[in-house]
């Protein structure tokens, strides 16, 4: 086997796996506290990419309502990335207020919340399509100006080029993963979140403002999701309003594989699925898209609690 090729596949797998992981962390943050799966997260991911694209002065096509729309100014990429993610976080907070809070206050079945978030996802995605059309948008290659397009990990006569963007993705993802883990494990906020997850009412009695922390969690989840969206958009392109949904479905495979609600589980699951996809032989490339779902199905049947999840105890 060609060592260079294997190395390339490995890095490809790690880089896409990292994106899956930080994407899935958005699901996990919310699931670990509220025990619900927020399907709208996939649409927030998409929104993040579109926001950033718009903020760096990107122009929209002629199909949507905002045809040929363009900002009168253009932000530098790094600022646009952060502002885009913040905007995505704010949208996520708004979704929580509109579609989750009423159900939570009523103590509704988690399945109803799932259905409601599905509805939100569909609305957001189609509003994007309605506003800016279904075209593919690509970030101009100049956004990472100053960096070479690829870094050579081999030597002069045996080149092993790795795209710079993949290294950027890898670095950003690692920072986010470490940051989130520290936040949950090492800070007072993290402790408060765990208390809410255990029992929101008791946490409230102990002086923890549950509503505010839940909103903060949604903001964080949207922020991370929006960031992941931009990174993927940068790496491939923004393949129309539905590209987040495809990612969202794969993200489900990631969180189930890792164990619902477990932060290290999401990271591990993301990396494993990214690697599994990268090592699908090129002769079977057509079925690559089915790999995460086959894994999801198998995990659900063999070990529903996932790799790192606690086993499920059913209470009466």
């Amino acid at each position, binding site marked *: 086997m060609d060592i260079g090729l294997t190395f390339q596949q490995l890095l490809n797998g790690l880089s896409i796996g990292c994106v899956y992981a930080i994407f899935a962390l958005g699901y996990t943050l919310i699931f670990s506290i509220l025990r619900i799966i927020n399907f709208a997260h996939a649409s927030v991911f998409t929104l993040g990419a579109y926001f950033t694209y718009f903020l760096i002065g990107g122009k929209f096509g002629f199909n949507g309502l905002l045809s040929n729309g363009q900002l009168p100014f253009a932000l530098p990429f790094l600022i646009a990335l952060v502002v885009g993610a913040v905007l995505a976080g704010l949208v996520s907070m708004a979704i929580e207020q509109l579609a989750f809070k009423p159900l939570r206050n009523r103590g509704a079945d988690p399945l109803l919340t799932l259905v409601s978030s599905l509805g939100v996802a569909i*609305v957001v995605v189609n509003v994007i399509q*309605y506003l800016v059309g279904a075209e593919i948008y690509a970030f101009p290659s100049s956004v990472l100006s100053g960096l070479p397009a690829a870094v050579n990990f081999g030597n002069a006569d045996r080149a092993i080029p790795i795209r710079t963007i993949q290294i950027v993705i890898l670095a950003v993802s690692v920072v986010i993963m470490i940051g989130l883990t520290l936040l949950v494990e090492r800070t007072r906020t993290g402790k408060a979140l765990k208390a809410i997850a255990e029992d929101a009412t008791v946490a409230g009695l102990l002086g923890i403002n549950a509503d505010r922390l839940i909103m903060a969690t949604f903001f964080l989840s949207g922020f991370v999701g929006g960031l992941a969206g931009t990174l993927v958009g940068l790496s491939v392109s923004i393949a129309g309003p539905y590209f987040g949904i495809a990612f969202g479905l794969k993200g489900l495979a990631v969180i189930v594989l890792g164990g619902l609600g477990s932060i290290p589980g999401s990271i591990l699951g993301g990396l494993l699925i990214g690697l599994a996809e990268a090592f699908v032989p090129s002769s079977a490339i057509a079925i690559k898209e089915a790999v995460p779902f086959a894994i*999801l199905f198998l995990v659900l049947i063999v070990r529903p609690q996932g790799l790192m999840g606690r086993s499920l105890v059913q209470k*009466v």
Partner: protein
Amino acid sequence: MVAMVLAATLALSLYLPLMSGQLSLATPGFYAIGGYVAAILSTKVIHVTGPYPIPLILGEMILAGAGCGVLAVLIGVPALRLRGVYLALATIAFVEIVRVLSLTVEFTGGAIGIFNIPQPFVTANGIEYLLIALPMLICAALFVYRLERIGVGRALVAIREDELAADAVGINPTRYKVLSFAMGAMLAGAVGALSAHFLNTWNARQGTFDASIAVLAFVLIGGSRSFVGPIVGAMVLTALPEGLRAVAGIGELPVWLATLLRDGRVIIYGLLIVICTLNFPQGLIAPRQPVRKAVKSS
């Protein structure tokens, strides 16, 4: 009209597993498989000149239904040990696997799909399909109506209300859940087989995540606690885009509103799903006797 009746039957196929409290989004997967069965049989296996004989369509529908039923049992036995969210996830995975496979495998025609599926009727709008679709809907509705009144149906409802309690009084939850899942799959397969002829062409777009959402909207908006709900919900929501299009054609409306009315079918479905879950968790057509609020189990 035909589309309305077909959608209503499809909604019933999602209602069946829901009777036992299982949110299964697998319907479009089985619908797609049923369609492929009919499309492949009628274009590649059987060659008939002239109008396609109706008994053959009925045969295809039975075959598709039976095939989907067997598949549903095979999938259902392991998958239905899962509960709630996990089952919904597994069925989403199933739909995606079916979609990717039908895009890849050769005999389904890949991304292009299968064309020129023979038609039994000659008129352009295919209104005669009602001759098959309407009896199918009526039979399915009668079946569900009867089912709710015999032991099996009561067992399903018992599982929906409280699975542990049902288990404790001697109902085998897995068996009944698989049964309701398989019945839904058979119905979806049969609808798919008929739709393939009606639509004349069949491809992987027939069974997507969006389709899952649409059928779910039919059931939720109509009401998930009585079989009349899904039927009414499906008929209204299938007719809705046509109605909106007519409104959009009136003119005098601002451009953005007209476009929204014309192309915003899915946005409206999504909004309706959210509004209905928030405000009418029982659907617009609530069951006659009030169901007491289920004890919250976590």
